[in-house]
């Protein structure tokens, strides 16, 4: 259990999230161009996030009738803050974690659960029908996969004999969890797609609700919400890399580079999924989550338990 000095720790989390959010925006632009069959130059892709910021800054802010202004402004901040809190318990290199607490996976799970509240309140605060419908729909779907992430994280904690994510990484020195517990990573990625509401599980800000939870957001507010969502994507990617893909373990390259590569890889897969997998129907997914995915998570626990007997 190591802890960085607070100033360094905050700077580290902010730096990782800033680079990560920018990277997610660039990859998103590249993948969408490739899928659509357009040509996009590297310079254009690198400039795309900056252009989005410029557009957001110059756009006129609009509001709704009698919104809950405080919650509306605070929801993106809370969502981004939860992403930072989730990232804080993930060690980025041996001994380099903001706070590798003993209850790492429980803190991660709590941040994830509170993110559901932030997303719901972001839909509720504008006092407008489409965001509210999106918020409710999200809660209904989110409750069905919330348990999965806790079960796969507990399964990963069994061989490590610790709930600290640093200890989980160290337990994968010989064999990564993605091979030892093959069901863990796919289930965790489903949760990641759900909590960051992208691609197949975009039941929040989706086009069938004209933008849903973000339908009434304008300008900077919309930008803050998108950035917070990308930050959460980075936190989930880092956790996937640490818990299932061996974290910093890897040959030749330094530990931190391996961790960064794996995080970027998972983030790219998730962003790519947004463009190539169609959105699932929420009610079908909820039924599927309770009857298929949840038993699979139990199976994952059984596999992890049997392996460590």
């Amino acid at each position: 259990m190591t802890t960085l000095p607070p100033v360094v720790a905050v700077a580290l989390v902010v730096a990782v999230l800033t680079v990560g959010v920018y990277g997610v925006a660039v990859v998103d632009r590249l993948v969408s161009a490739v899928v659509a069959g357009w040509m996009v130059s590297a310079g254009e892709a690198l400039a795309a996030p900056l252009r989005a910021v410029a557009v957001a800054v110059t756009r006129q802010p609009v509001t709704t009738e009698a919104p809950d202004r405080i919650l509306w402004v605070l929801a993106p901040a809370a969502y981004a803050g939860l992403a930072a809190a989730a990232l804080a318990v993930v060690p980025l290199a041996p001994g380099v974690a903001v706070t590798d607490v003993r209850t790492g996976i429980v803190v991660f799970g709590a941040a994830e659960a509170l993110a559901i509240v932030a997303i719901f309140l972001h839909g509720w605060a504008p006092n407008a029908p489409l965001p509210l419908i999106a918020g409710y729909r999200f809660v209904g779907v989110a409750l069905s996969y919330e348990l999965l992430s806790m079960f796969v994280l507990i399964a990963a904690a069994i061989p490590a004999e610790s709930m600290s994510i640093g200890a989980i990484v160290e337990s994968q020195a010989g064999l990564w969890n993605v091979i030892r517990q093959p069901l863990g990573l796919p289930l965790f990625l489903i949760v990641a797609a759900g909590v960051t509401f992208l691609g197949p599980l975009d039941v929040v800000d989706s086009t069938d609700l004209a933008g849903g939870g973000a339908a009434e957001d304008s300008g900077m507010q919309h930008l803050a919400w998108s950035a917070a969502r990308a930050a959460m994507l980075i936190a989930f990617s880092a956790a996937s890399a640490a818990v299932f893909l061996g974290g910093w373990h890897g040959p030749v390259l330094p530990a931190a580079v391996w961790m960064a590569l794996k995080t970027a890889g998972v983030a790219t897969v998730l962003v790519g999924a947004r463009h190539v997998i169609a959105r699932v129907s929420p009610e079908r997914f909820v039924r599927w989550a309770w009857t298929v995915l949840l038993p699979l998570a139990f199976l994952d626990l059984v596999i992890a338990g049997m392996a460590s007997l």
Partner: protein
Amino acid sequence: MTGVDVAFWVFALAAVWSGYRVFRTDSMVRASFLLLASFLNVGAILVLLLAEYLGTALLFMMTVEMVVMALFMVMFMMNPAGLNPMEMVHQPRLAAVAGVVTTAGLGLVAVVVDFPDAPVDPAAETIRALGTELLGGSMLVFESAGVTLLATMVCAVILSAARGRYGDGTAGSVAPPLEPGGDHRPEDDLVGDGGGGHHHHGGH
């Protein structure tokens, strides 16, 4: 005052204030999330008290519970968004007196009773000890809680099922009168064709 003391007072005041605001806000969604805020602050105090696992688990559990609560709130409240001010309380004086008496009595216990001075060792492996206790000495207690939760799930499904062994759950359902002691108005019934509900009403 150390940093821990300052943190404790901040969390304690926030917990009490948000707990109070739960019953003073018009909006049901706000009420459930204010209650969640109260729980989050108590969870933070538990972490300060070195019960890290319990504090974090409280955050996790209560968040999910309060999300469910907010959903139910809006399903069953006549004014879910809280846009119109409304007062939905009864026996306010009795309730306030009961609350004050409870606080005073328990506060007196807290101040007067001489509790043993046995602080927890900060270096102790409290989480590991809890796990060993749950699956060791207290296994029967722990498993009983699990079985009770299972029974709860079965009961909840039976109680809330739309169709039971005695037929439709809404059979004979009648709307309550608008005023206490007022007449039943069949047009308020949500099920049946108005007259049907009234017929059942008379049969009881």
